[in-house]
């Protein structure tokens, strides 16, 4: 085992395979760039690791996790079925709070999805090679989160079987959707986002499904992976068009992801309600979405790298980088909270001032302070490298941030609606068991899909990791060659990661 520059083995357990050994490769020294792939660094070792996860016998722990998720998914089926058969009266939504849990959950889940596209598209455009180990399951997370999100507006409209009225389909009533309404923008934004994310995810997966096809031992897997991989032969002419298409899709997904949460925020910002009517909403929502999304990636990545033995691919450096992005976007969110307070005070408008004070001191103050604790206080610990490289603390903070982002949407939606202009129309919102069941059930849908994905599909983009490995080896080779006559700084930092 070679120890490369910048590595520091944290757990002195040489018996552990590379995938289970924690190695600190978070060096800040730009002269000695630590590698992104640790342990045995050959193309075959990567293939083995990725293919083995999808082809090995199913573990008991997976069945337990899957059983639990599936039962929560069952709860979703029961609550949604009850809602559709009975009517929206089973939810806590009423006047004045006509947008209750369904919209809170919708915005929460759409936000979660954003980190996946950020990793797969924006970090790709910025040539951040460390994304390769995490992009696949971050993309999967995006798709499952958007599925959860899409469910809520669909079922809370009342007559879910007429949800197709949202689309511009010629009909005998001679009516069309209203294209100047933010609610219709939402339909197009979320629909486009789901479609593009799905294509991007599947396209990136084709070469890796081919890996599984070539590694599969039994006939059913060979046939299914064979069909899904579309006959991929690794032809360089195919790779060239594939890479070009990947670049184009990344370039398309980048403005798309920024537009989606902006459009979601327009649902609020274009209303005249104090607490919603604000021009800071689009950037504030996008930053919050990336913040919450990265928190969810960490919540999934930290157990996954442990259980699937992926610590040599999803290294501490990956976790630390994600923690840094969370800190940066968390500070943007905190800034937006501050601006909301400032503009309401500076506006001199009593309704604007009241809604902010009511948030912090009114009947939902507990939700507000939970949000402040989770989104303002908790991320500050990420300033410290000791915290960023401690997986347990990172896991706890990421969970807090996820909870905080849910409460942020709760605070924005519920507290703005429940006390508006006329005190005579004030009221309170209380969730029913159907509301709570649908929230818990959406996590069931999310984790069921995610566990199925982990079981049957390539969780790491093997071909991309191999390309990074080939680059790293090329660079190390050059470094060794350059060391002999004296290190040239331009050479050492050459193919920047």
């Amino acid at each position, binding site marked *: 085992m070679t120890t490369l520059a910048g590595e520091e083995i944290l757990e002195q357990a040489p018996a552990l395979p590379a995938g289970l050994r924690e190695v600190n490769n978070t060096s800040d020294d730009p002269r000695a760039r630590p590698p992104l792939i640790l342990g045995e660094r050959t193309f075959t070792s990567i293939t083995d690791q990725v293919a083995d996860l999808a082809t090995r016998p199913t573990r008991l722990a997976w069945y337990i996790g899957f059983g639990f998720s599936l039962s929560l998914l069952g709860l979703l089926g029961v609550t949604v079925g009850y809602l559709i058969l009975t009517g929206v009266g089973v939810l806590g939504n009423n006047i004045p709070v006509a947008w209750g849990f369904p919209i809170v959950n919708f915005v929460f889940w759409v936000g979660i999805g954003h980190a996946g596209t950020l990793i797969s598209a924006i970090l790709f455009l910025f040539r951040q090679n460390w994304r390769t180990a995490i992009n696949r399951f971050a993309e999967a997370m995006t798709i499952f989160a958007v599925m959860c999100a899409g469910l809520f507006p669909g079922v809370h409209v009342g007559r879910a079987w007429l949800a197709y009225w949202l689309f511009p389909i010629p009909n005998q009533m001679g009516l069309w959707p209203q294209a100047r309404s933010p609610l219709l923008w939402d339909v197009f934004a979320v629909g486009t986002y789901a479609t593009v994310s799905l294509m991007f995810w599947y396209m990136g997966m084709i070469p890796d499904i081919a890996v599984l096809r070539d590694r599969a031992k039994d006939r059913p897997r060979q046939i299914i992976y064979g069909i899904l991989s579309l006959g991929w032969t690794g032809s*360089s002419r195919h790779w060239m068009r594939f890479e070009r298409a990947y670049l184009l899709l990344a370039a398309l997904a980048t403005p798309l992801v920024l537009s989606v949460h902006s459009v979601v925020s327009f649902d609020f910002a274009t209303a005249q309600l104090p607490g919603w009517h604000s021009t800071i909403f689009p950037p504030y929502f996008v930053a919050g979405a990336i913040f919450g999304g990265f928190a969810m990636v960490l919540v999934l990545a930290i157990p996954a790298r442990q259980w699937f033995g992926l610590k040599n691919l999803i290294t501490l450096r990956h976790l630390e980088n994600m923690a840094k992005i969370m800190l940066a976007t968390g500070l943007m969110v905190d800034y937006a909270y501050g601006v909301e307070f400032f503009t309401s005070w500076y506006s001199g408008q009593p309704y604007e001032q009241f809604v902010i004070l009511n948030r912090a001191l009114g009947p939902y103050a507990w939700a507000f302070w939970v949000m402040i604790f989770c989104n303002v206080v908790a991320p500050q610990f990420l300033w410290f490298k000791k915290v960023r490289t401690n997986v347990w603390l990172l896991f706890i903070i990421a969970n807090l941030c996820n909870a905080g982002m849910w409460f942020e949407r709760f605070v924005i939606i519920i507290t703005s609606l429940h006390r508006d202009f006329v005190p005579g129309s004030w009221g309170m919102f209380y969730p029913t068991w159907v509301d709570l069941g649908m929230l818990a059930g959406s996590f069931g849908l999310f984790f069921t899909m995610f566990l199925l994905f982990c079981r049957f599909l390539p969780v790491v983009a093997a071909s991309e990791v191999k390309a990074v490995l080939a680059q790293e080896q090329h660079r190390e080779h050059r470094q060794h060659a350059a060391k002999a006559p004296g290190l040239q700084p331009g050479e050492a930092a050459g193919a920047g990661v």
Partner: protein
Amino acid sequence: MMDRSADNLASPPATDGNAPVPSLYALMGEFEDVDSLLAAAEKVRDAGYRDWDVHAPFPVHGIDKAMGMRPTILPWLSLGAGLAGVAGGTFLVWWINATSTAALPATLSGYQYLISGKPIFSLPANIPIIFELTVLITSIVTFLGMLALNRLPMLYHPLFKSARFRRVTDDRFFVVIEASDPQFDEPKTRALLEGLGSTAVERIED
């Protein structure tokens, strides 16, 4: 150098008289590392072959140049789709909300909503849908265009008969020169591949 009987595990063991004689599809040379692959690709390109390809587990940096590949027309397809998306999206939102054509059946005629006295058609309020439709159509055309230009899905390929070729998704690189190439001559092409440092040369039958 090569052991054909052990390699062609998936192909039928022998012909039974009635079966058609398999025709030669290509010669396939195996390479173990990127550097020798790139060097070999340059030689094959310079030898003037046309119907040949390099198969690799990941996109090899610099292979486009080594193989003398022409750039793909895919970006132009995307651009066309993007322009069609802008035009189509604009037409859609304008037609459904800003027109009303009595001559047409109600199913197809637009419907002019008057909302809060705002203009029937104004560009800013319609931009989000136009933008999303542009991205949607461009992405679909880019994805399907990539597949179509690559002739995918193609679930049968003669190369899949070779057991050695299975490592193309793992850690091996292959230069495949097809028999359809006008320059193809089995002994000469084989000598070329062997001379380029390929670790094994295999006959691929169709």
